[in-house]
């Protein structure tokens, strides 16, 4: 049963990948797109396919998978169905990294900005965990979330302050903040891939232990799980996955929060299945939103972050209204 659904999801994902290669600002015949993938169709079409659409599609796949995985792990770690990457200060850290890179350091390359955004996101997340867990005992979800909100407020204030003083920083920040897959190339993909791979490996490694953790800390410890180690692993994977994804494409809401819930409908609560299915469902959403964004405002396009929010919010509100809240 699960296997059939897994295959169906894979099929949908493959179709979306093809569509993502076919659809864009310039109409290219499908035959030429496929031709350019495998052979020679002239520099013009190859430039569009290899230079823009293929890296964009691959980036969508990677970032989507990362957000889905991170969301599922985060909900298991905090045992909170509402845990969302934005909550732990990761997005605010990345935003601060970008304006700091523009105004203070004077970075001028695209990769430089992504690097600073990643560093800011990782630092923010580490500070939140340290704050939330300071003092005795483990970090309670509420303390962790409050620490995240406090740090987000601090970083957002600093970001706005810098953006008001430095127009170049504001310019960088506003285009990053809208969330977009456009403009990416394989350079971004190769730089992100190792980080995301590391995060995914850690996430899948702690998946069986997350099942025990869902029964409560005491039970997990009695079952022989090293609770502290599992939590640390989960935190590391969330940070790596989300920080890299957000740094590259900007803050994307909805995906990390809702995909694990959809995945739970497909697989049930077993994290060994839940995590891979989340990693497949999330890119389905992200690619579909990206393709929609290219179609709705021709010849321009709407960034994937905006499409996801505007299409996702009604779905989310519908879920909230219908399902019993304990399940969500």
């Amino acid at each position, binding site marked *: 049963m699960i296997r059939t659904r897994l295959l169906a999801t894979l099929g949908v994902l493959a179709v979306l990948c093809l569509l993502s290669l076919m659809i864009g600002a310039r109409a290219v015949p499908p035959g030429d797109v496929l031709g350019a993938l495998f052979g020679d169709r002239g520099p013009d079409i190859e430039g569009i396919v290899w230079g823009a659409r293929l890296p964009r599609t691959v980036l969508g796949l990677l970032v989507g998978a990362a957000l889905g995985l991170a969301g599922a792990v985060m909900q298991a770690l905090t045992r909170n169905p*509402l845990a969302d990457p934005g909550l732990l200060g990761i997005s605010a850290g990345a935003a601060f990294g970008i304006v700091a890179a523009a105004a203070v350091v004077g970075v001028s390359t695209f990769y430089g900005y992504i690097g600073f955004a990643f560093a800011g996101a990782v630092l923010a997340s580490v500070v939140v965990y340290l*704050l*939330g*867990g*300071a*003092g*005795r*005992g483990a970090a309670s979800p*509420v*303390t962790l*979330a*409050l*620490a995240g*909100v*406090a*740090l987000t*407020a*601090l970083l*957002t*204030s*600093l970001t*706005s*302050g810098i*953006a*008001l003083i430095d*127009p170049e920083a*504001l*310019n960088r920040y*506003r*285009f990053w*903040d*809208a*969330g977009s897959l456009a403009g990416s190339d394989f350079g971004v993909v190769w730089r992100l891939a190792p980080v995301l791979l590391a995060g995914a490996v850690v996430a899948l490694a702690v998946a069986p232990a997350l099942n025990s953790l869902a029964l409560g800390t005491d039970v997990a410890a009695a079952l022989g799980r090293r609770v502290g180690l599992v939590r640390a692993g989960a935190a590391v994977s969330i940070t790596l996955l989300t920080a890299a994804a957000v740094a590259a494409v900007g803050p994307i*809401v*909805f995906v990390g929060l809702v995909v694990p819930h959809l995945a739970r409908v497909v697989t049930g609560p077993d994290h060994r299945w839940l995590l891979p299915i989340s990693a497949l469902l999330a890119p389905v959403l992200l690619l579909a939103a990206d393709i929609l964004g290219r179609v709705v405002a021709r010849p321009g396009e*709407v*960034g994937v*972050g*905006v499409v*996801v*929010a*505007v299409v*996702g*919010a*009604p779905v*989310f*509100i519908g879920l*909230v*209204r219908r399902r019993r*809240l304990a399940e*969500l």
Partner: protein
Amino acid sequence: MPARIRPLLVPACLAGATAAAFCLGLAMGAHWVDPVDVVRALAGSGDRFALLTVNELRLPRALVGLLAGAAFGVAGAVFQTVTRNPLASPDMIGISAGAAVAVVAGIVLGIDPAGLGLAGGLLAALVVYLLAWNQGTTGYRIILVGVGVTWVCTSTTSWLLTKAELYQAQQAVGWLVGNLGDSTWQDVPALAVSAAVLVPGVLLLGGWLRTLQLGDEIATGLGTPVQRARLVLLLAGVGLVAFATAAAGPIAFIALASPQIARRLAGAAAPPVLASGLTGALVVLAADLLARQVQLPVGVVTGVFGAPFLMWLLIRKNRYA
């Protein structure tokens, strides 16, 4: 400290500090006006320069700061108590985001943004409440629906910012962070009337707040009309925040942090309404004193100093727990 004195002493100290910050706000600025001259100007005499500075520039600014800060603080306490969630704040429930998207749209499209903030905030709150209504509603569902509405508003704001000219984007970011620099007497009446009606109203309904905080079942058992109480209290909070945001912008964080700070100062189990309002006013006024010196909007300063204070409270509490 004896347990009985603290609930009285804390608001008294907060009120004193707020009054001091308010008076300093009249004297301090680009140039210093002596307290004697301030009093004289308030009474309507003295030299013309002091009259202009104190009565036309600093007094409306200080009044907007005082009232908006208090409104944010009280509304935050109401939201956090009614939803029983320390993270619930109007920032999360869509009001600020709704006001923001309306004002930014006004700036980008070249419409005078006065009044748009109020309309956007109230509209967002209405949409959230209607969508959260399904044979009654719960605090949890209001937060969740608010999250969804906030997504739409925030991402639309981001998209508008990418479509704007750079100078428009600067103006929009200046408003988005919360700014008292442009306050005039025009901003005062609506804000003052709403605060004068709604703050005492919320204080009078303190009994409902105390029972709602115990949970729906217990509150019903104690005779509180839960649905009606929640609706009335949330409406009051929405009104306060909508008017405050329209006058001063969504000053980061005051509604969220003031109740938490006040609760910890007062050593109470739930956010005390009066102390939360005073904390909000104090934080905004004090932050504005500093904001004038560094030529930045007040929202930058509240975030930069308020957030570490909340962090410190969190760490301290963790140690004791």
